């Protein structure tokens, strides 16, 4: 049925993950392009092959796993959760206890990373199941408040449970970011040193990138698959109208519990990988700002869609570096006195008394780059909610539909 992607003549084609040939081709090309990034052979993507960019991309891929989890509970099942940072923290500290190096003051079993990540996911999932009944009692903004409370409870526990999380504002070390089957000193897949893979030299960030590409791809595929299962359809029914769903025979409490459990599992795994990759984090890391970042990812990308998770994560994770590079670019314009200099001078604050929105340090009336990013998240969330609830995915849909109907507007 070429050219008629919405026409389905059998149940199988309607249910398939990637129904059209175009989608399959785009997916394959995308995957190959992504795989080539650390090697730096594709023109236009070469700059991403530096360790600095690769590190950001690895973190983005880890965030994709977490965002896919939030997408399950918030996007698919419609239960707003601000507690994602808490579940990530639970996963991270479970991983620390499982795979961290033990000392007199710290717990650690020195088991491989994969065990830590799975254990992190499972413990987070169990806590998700414990939290889920509140979602049956309250919904919407009230549920958001309840889950918000989790973040603060978590902050308190993480700051005080020193055997697990280390010392407040200092933190602890996690186990190595290595793929070992059992013995962490003899990894099956060495991810933490620079070296050659299949004859290609890769920095260790490049190896980690390829590893995370596979992991994130797997988790995204599983979450996309979930949407078409019986459970996924129950989620959608609950999201659209929970009373109606119950009348249809969907067990509300069960479906919401499943949503929280699966979502928390994703968050736990993401938290474990994130902390293990960075290697050293203070307990304050799992704060409200992290939750807000995930909400931003979901809403900017497009709630309920897997492609939205990918686009949203890339957008939110790359935004700070882009703002920074943009500021650097503007600064060069001023220093170099190019024709853009007057405009650049309007945007950045170069000194005391100078007008500008962005300043290069926190003091004075200008915004620091960090503050500018935080405010940008807020504005983008607001703007997308009002003008494009489907997010970046919605924008893509509109562009596609425009060309589909071209030259007609309808």
């Amino acid at each position: 049925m070429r050219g008629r992607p919405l026409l389905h003549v059998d149940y199988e084609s309607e249910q398939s993950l990637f129904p059209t040939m175009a989608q399959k081709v785009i997916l394959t090309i995308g995957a190959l392009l992504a795989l080539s990034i650390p090697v730096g052979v594709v023109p236009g993507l070469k700059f991403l092959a530096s360790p600095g960019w690769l590190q950001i991309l690895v973190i983005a891929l880890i965030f994709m796993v977490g965002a896919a989890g939030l997408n399950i509970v918030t996007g698919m099942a419609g239960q707003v959760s601000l507690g994602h940072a808490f579940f990530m923290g639970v996963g991270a500290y479970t991983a620390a206890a499982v795979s961290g190096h033990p000392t007199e003051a710290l717990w650690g079993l020195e088991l491989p990373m994969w065990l830590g990540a799975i254990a992190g996911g499972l413990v987070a999932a169990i806590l998700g199941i414990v939290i889920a009944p509140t979602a049956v009692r309250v919904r919407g903004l009230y549920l958001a408040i309840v889950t918000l409370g989790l973040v603060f409870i978590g902050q308190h526990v993480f700051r005080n449970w020193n055997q697990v999380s280390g010392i407040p504002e200092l933190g602890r070390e996690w186990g190595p970011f290595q793929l070992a089957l059992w013995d962490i000193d003899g990894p099956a897949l060495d991810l933490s040193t620079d070296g050659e893979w299949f004859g290609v030299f890769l920095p260790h960030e490049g190896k980690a990138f390829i590893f995370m590409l596979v992991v994130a791809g797997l988790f995204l595929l599983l979450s996309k698959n979930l949407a078409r299962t019986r459970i996924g359809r129950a989620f959608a029914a609950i999201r659209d109208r929970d009373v109606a769903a119950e009348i249809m025979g969907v067990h509300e409490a069960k479906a919401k519990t499943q949503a929280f459990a699966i979502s928390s599992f994703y968050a736990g795994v993401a938290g474990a990988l994130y902390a293990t990759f960075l290697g050293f984090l203070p307990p304050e890391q799992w704060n409200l700002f992290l939750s807000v970042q995930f909400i931003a990812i979901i809403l900017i990308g497009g709630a309920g869609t897997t492609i939205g998770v990918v686009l949203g994560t890339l957008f939110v994770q790359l935004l700070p570096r882009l703002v920074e590079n943009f500021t650097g670019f503007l600064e060069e314009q001023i220093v170099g006195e190019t024709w853009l200099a007057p405009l650049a001078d309007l945007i950045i604050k170069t000194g005391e008394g100078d007008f500008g929105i962005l300043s290069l340090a926190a003091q004075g009336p200008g915004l620091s780059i960090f503050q500018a990013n935080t405010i940008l998240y807020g504005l983008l969330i607001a703007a997308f909610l009002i003008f494009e609830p489907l997010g970046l995915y919605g924008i893509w849909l509109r562009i596609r539909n425009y060309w589909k109907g071209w030259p007609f507007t309808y």
Partner: protein
Amino acid sequence: MSLKKKLIVVGFVLALVATACGDSTDDTTTAAPATTAAPTTTAAPTTAAPTTTVAPPADDIMTDIGVTDDEIFVGLLADLSGPFSGLTVDIVDAQVAYWEDVVNAGGGIAGRTVVPVIEDTVYNVATHGEKYTKIVDQVVAFSNSTGSPHTASILSQLQEDNVLAIPLSWYSGWADPEFDQGITFELGTNYCLEGMNVMEWLVERFKADNDGALPSLAIATRAGDYGQDAAAGVKYAAQQLGLEIKYDGEGLIVRSNPAEYTAADATPVITGIVAAQPDIVWLTSAPSETAVIMGGALQGGLTTAQWTGSVPSYDFRLLDSALAEALTGLFWQPNYAVSWGTDVPGMAQVSEVLTARYPDRRPSDAFILGWTEARAMEQILRQAAANGDMTRQGVIDAANTIDTIVMDGAGPDFNYQGSPDDYVVRELYMYKPNVQAYLAAGGMDQKLEDGLGTTGSELVDGPFVMPLAENFNFTGACWTQEEGNRISG
């Protein structure tokens, strides 16, 4: 959703974001002066793989990463917009002034211009690591890495990349080869030796004023390698000198909310100190915490005790607060380097260079810290150039073998030769805040262009070393996360 509902949601989300933003608010009491455009991040020399070989330069100096035929790249991982930015911005700006207006204006090092590569770490461990990876392939060494956990988090990478770093932190572990594997080069004395030194100095003074009577002591510190490292030194001194510790608040200065130290957080500490009625109170805290605890104890009726604490517990901006009079009367302020305006040989140059570059900034003690960091790094690089080896390993070797790192009186001269016990810095300065002198000079409205100015600190003694610290056999960190206090009970 109707538009009204949408707006409610939007408002809610914005409120949340605003709350989240609250975490980044400044920790110190007053806003710091606005900065000029100094932290100019420079373009990367090259981001090629680290293994790229550089063509041998004409002057026979070996180089690998971060040094080209005409430029030397030095990294700064600094908190420019996080909780300590009030201090760090001054530190970075002083470094930039030193590199550009002193070193480069004087012909550079081995004919090469020094280029500072500055990244903002927001005082966040994750960002610190991210920024480290971003610039590590460009620089030969780091002349600033702000924060203890932050520097600790990149320690294994520093070792792997074999690149020297000067931490902006005074943890005794930086001098401990077991902890840092010889890759970090700290400036000034450490929290632990400082605790010993200050306690003995104050006790001597107390005895002289009180017919030989020994003072009693109260201790309150933060948890971790800042507070507990200092507490180890203070307790060691108390043990050796026979002082009674009437209140032990080691590790008890804890915030329930990272953004703010509230009265509720401080209450247990304050009541403990007031109930103990000690003669001397030791604090290892952030300046805002010092203000809350000292203010609370004064209101609680502890009006005669003398106060002191680790260097970072005090900030001259506290003299802009209601606590200024009490600090003037009761607080002893130790320092690792001199305060702004102290009459030492090097001050004239510091003042001249910074005034020319930043005429409308106010005087700041942090300028001196940045200046000494850059000055130490300059001498290490010059030594490396003289050795004919400006590779990363060459720079580390130079740091380990240089005879004296000269500070012109801005701080104690020192070197890194031999064992930690040989080279660890033990000298300290003792200052006393004086709000009258501070206000007479113009207080917070002072500008560098109006004259030397003051941050209100008057030198009482220094550089000095008391016998306890002098004779202490320093073999490693006084306190570690794994083992806790390693030198006293």
